Structure formats: structure tokens, C-alpha cells
């Protein structure tokens, strides 16, 4: 039986959760230590498929600004953060950019895009 200790980050209280695999329960998991239902939902998600928004910058060429800030527009699997960073590091941009513009579509094939977080003339 698999289990994992986590800290809930949904609210500042920071309950210490234990997520335990439990074939008998409806979701397949049992969460202990949560003070409210949001903790249960977070615990299961973090156990099954932890994802993170990645924020970084990409290089701008021949521009007044040197870096374009970017982020993923959804969570990417936690273990792929560094793969995502390798792609981000390989990009160079020379054109005008609008905030929200897609820089890499469906990055790593995980179903989310890398977007610009500011406009660049």
C-alpha cells in the first residue's frame, strides 16, 4: 500500500496530510490530517499527478529589453519541470510580442502552452 506525507497549501493553515491508497474508498485514496474538504482534494491530486506552473524568461535578440518573461498557462507534471526549462533556455525571440501570446504551443506535449507575460515592442 502506497502512502505519502504532504503539506496542504490550499490555505495558509498548512495542514499536514497523509494520503493513503485505499481500494475500498470511492476515489481510491484516503486522506488524513486535513481540516476541510479542500485538503482532501489537494492531497489526492498532489499524490496522483502533481503539477506546477513554470515561470521563467526567454532571450530577446536585438531588443531594448533583454529578457521576455514567460509562464505555462497550466500545470505541467512536476517531474518534467527541468525538461520544460531546457526548452525555455533554447528559445530566442526577435519579433514583437503581445502579453498572453503563445511562445511554445503544447509544450512537451502535455497539453499546456508557454505564453508571454508581458508585451515587447
Amino acid at each position, binding site marked *: 500500500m502506497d502512502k505519502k506525507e504532504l*503539506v*496542504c*497549501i490550499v*490555505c*495558509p*493553515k*498548512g495542514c499536514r496530510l497523509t494520503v493513503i491508497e485505499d481500494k475500498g474508498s470511492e476515489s481510491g485514496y484516503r486522506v488524513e490530517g486535513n*481540516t476541510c474538504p479542500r485538503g482532501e482534494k489537494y492531497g489526492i491530486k498532489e499524490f496522483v499527478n502533481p503539477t*506546477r*506552473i*513554470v*515561470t*521563467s*524568461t526567454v*532571450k530577446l535578440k536585438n531588443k531594448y*529589453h*533583454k*529578457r521576455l*518573461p514567460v*509562464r505555462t498557462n497550466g500545470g505541467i507534471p*512536476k517531474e518534467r*519541470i*527541468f525538461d520544460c*526549462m531546457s526548452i525555455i533556455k533554447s528559445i530566442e525571440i526577435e519579433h514583437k510580442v503581445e*502579453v498572453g501570446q503563445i511562445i511554445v504551443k503544447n509544450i512537451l506535449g502535455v497539453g499546456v502552452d508557454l505564453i508571454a*507575460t*508581458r*508585451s515587447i515592442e
Partner: protein
Amino acid sequence: MIQYEIVVIGGGPAGLAAAVEAKKNGINNILVIERDKELGGILNQCIHNGFGLHVFKEELTGPEYAERFIDELKNMGIEYKTDTMVLNIDDEKNIKVLNSTEGLLEIKAKAVVLSMGCRERTRGAISIPGYRPAGVFTAGAAQRYINIEGYMVGKRVIILGSGDIGLIMARRLTLEGAEVLAVVEVLPFSGGLTRNIVQCLDDFNIPLLLSHTVTKIEGKDRVKGVVISKVDDNRRPIPETEKHFNCDTLLLSVGLIPENELSEKAGIEIDPITNGPIVNESMETNIRGVFACGNVVHVHDLVDYVTEESSTAGKNAARYVKNELIKDAEPIKTKPLNGIRYIVPHTVRVENLEDSLDMLMRVDNVYKNAKLIIKADKNIIKKVNKNHLAPGEMERIKIKLSELKNKKIFDISVEVEREDA
């Protein structure tokens, strides 16, 4: 001499919100002055997400949050000058300004909004023995180098201070390929959000050393290593607990101080706890018609609260210009009692409130399952249950106008009541 109805000093989120709100309240002749190359303030370098959950109900990065306000300001046709430094203001609202294209300018304003933000404490403020080699940065300076200038500060890094900026930088450096050996915190708890501890440290297995501090920096030209020691309850290093780390970089994330040189020169009264101006319900300082908002008043951790507080300042600057602020009402004092370090605003003229009073405050310690008790003189007017209170998280309390109106009140106090006490 150039004349404006309202001059806003500082073009960060505070100044932007104040200017936009003043314009919405009917003032057309507004100038925003910013010393940096562009508007946006500290947000331009805060490329991580976590901004705007209250104001926009979505999670934005710093630059996205800033751009929305900058666009609004531009669309409204509000005038601004970047690359322009305010050198001096006096109690008559004469402002001396310097920029490279126009030289020295003198501006006269009917109302002024101070929104100069804060600066970082440096090593001088904490005194670590050793030389001052290259490789020692404040966390904010490192953030600017990496995120704006695009160059790395080092390869093996120790971070002193576990507030949110220190934590965010631990992740940022790791993503850029540096090895963060530890985040060191002198207090027995981190001042940062749990979310940042989980997503910036735990995700990358970066150790958090609580009740520890840096006691020595090694290296003459460049940092070669640091010594870290455990501290006792009085934050004094304990002998024989020293641990040596080889590293080339030390980041200091040891706190922020409101930037109030200009305010002090103008004769504005400063609260020794917040290090920012003493303000009333309208965010007005002791000089009538001079308002202040954002990090220059007290250091905020949520930009959303900065925006709201600054809208209040902007709106009231407009009311002041239009002669709508009631000036000589007898003010109520706000009183931080047990467990509360400070309250903003410091005084309240009930006559100027619109429908409620918003009080922002910080507690002095971590409390679990506590209550905030708000009293008007001796009478309890509100109780708020808090299952978690921490110095790193600003608390906000709203009091309905009906609780205050047409009553003879001398002070409003707030205190922490502990369940377990």
C-alpha cells in the same frame, strides 16, 4: 513652475492604482513620476505567479499584473514621466524633479501621493564578519540581474532569510541551473507562505535550516564559502555548532524597509514600527493633501492589498482637490494591543468613510486557533476566528460604518485572543 492637480511619486502598482482612481474621480491633471526606465515598479522583476487572486480572481505573474494597470493608465491618457527622479518635496507641495532630457524641473501640486515603495535591508543592517567579497547580493538585486538583465549570479548558493523573496529566489536559481545548498533562517519559523516552502524548497529538496544564521563569509575577492551556526532563543550563535559550506554566492533576503527619505525631509511623521508615514482613513499623512500608499507606508506581501489601499489614497487625493474631504473632524485612534504589531490607518475620521473601515495589520508571532478581538473603547464590536496567524501574512479587518457612525469613540483596538491561553 509647472502645475498639476495631483502628482504621484513612484510608478509601481501603488502609484498606478492611485493615479487611475484619482482620474476616475474626476481629476484630469495628474502626473506620475518614475525614476526607472518603465512603469510597474518591483512587479517587473517578479516573474513568478501568485499575483492578482483578489483583484482579478486569477493568478497572474508580476509583469502581467503591472501591464493591466499600465494599459489602463495609458488608455485614460494619464501623463507620466519615466527616467525621472524626485529629489525633494516640501510641505507646500513643491516638488523638485530631475531627468536627463529636461534637466531640473519644479512642479507645484495641489495634492501629492507618495508611492515610492521600499528598499532591501543590506548586509550592513545585519553585520556578518568577514571581508566584503563579490558574490554577496540582496535577493531583490539578484532577482533583477537574472530576470531583467538576464545574467546569473552564481553556481553554488546559500540564501539567508526565508521570507517569500528568499524562497522564490531559491527556486529561480535552481531552475537556472545553480545549486542552492540551503536556505538559512534565524527565526524558528519561516516568514514565507507554506505554498512557497512546498513549491520552492521541497520540490527541489532544498534544506531549510531554521534557527540558524550565517556567522562568517569566507573569501577576499569572491565568496569562497560561508559558516553557518545554530542560534539560541535570543538569536545568538551557539559555539561549536558551526558548519562550513563551499559556495560562491550568498543571497541576503533579510527584510524590506519603506523608502521614506523624501517623506522625512518634507516633515512627514513616521511610525517607528512600520517605518512608514502615519496615515489617516484617507491614507493622508500629517501634511494635509499629501497621501501615501503601498510599500512606502508598510511592507505588503500581497499586491492586491497594495492596489486596494492605493485606490483609497487616489480617490481621497481627488476628494481633497475637490474640497470634499472633511479636514477638522476629531479622529479616532487605532490601537494595536496584545499580539498586534501595528495597524494602518493610525487614525480615523469617521466623517470621511464611505461604507466601511478597512484596517490592515500584522501580528507579532505565529498563533493557531486564535481570535482577533476588535473593540471600540471597551465594547467588543467584532470577533474574527483565525485558525492560523503569522507575522508574514497581513491581516485585514473590515468594520461596518454603522458600528462607528454617530458614536463617541476614542479608540479602536485590536488584539489576539488565544484559545489555548
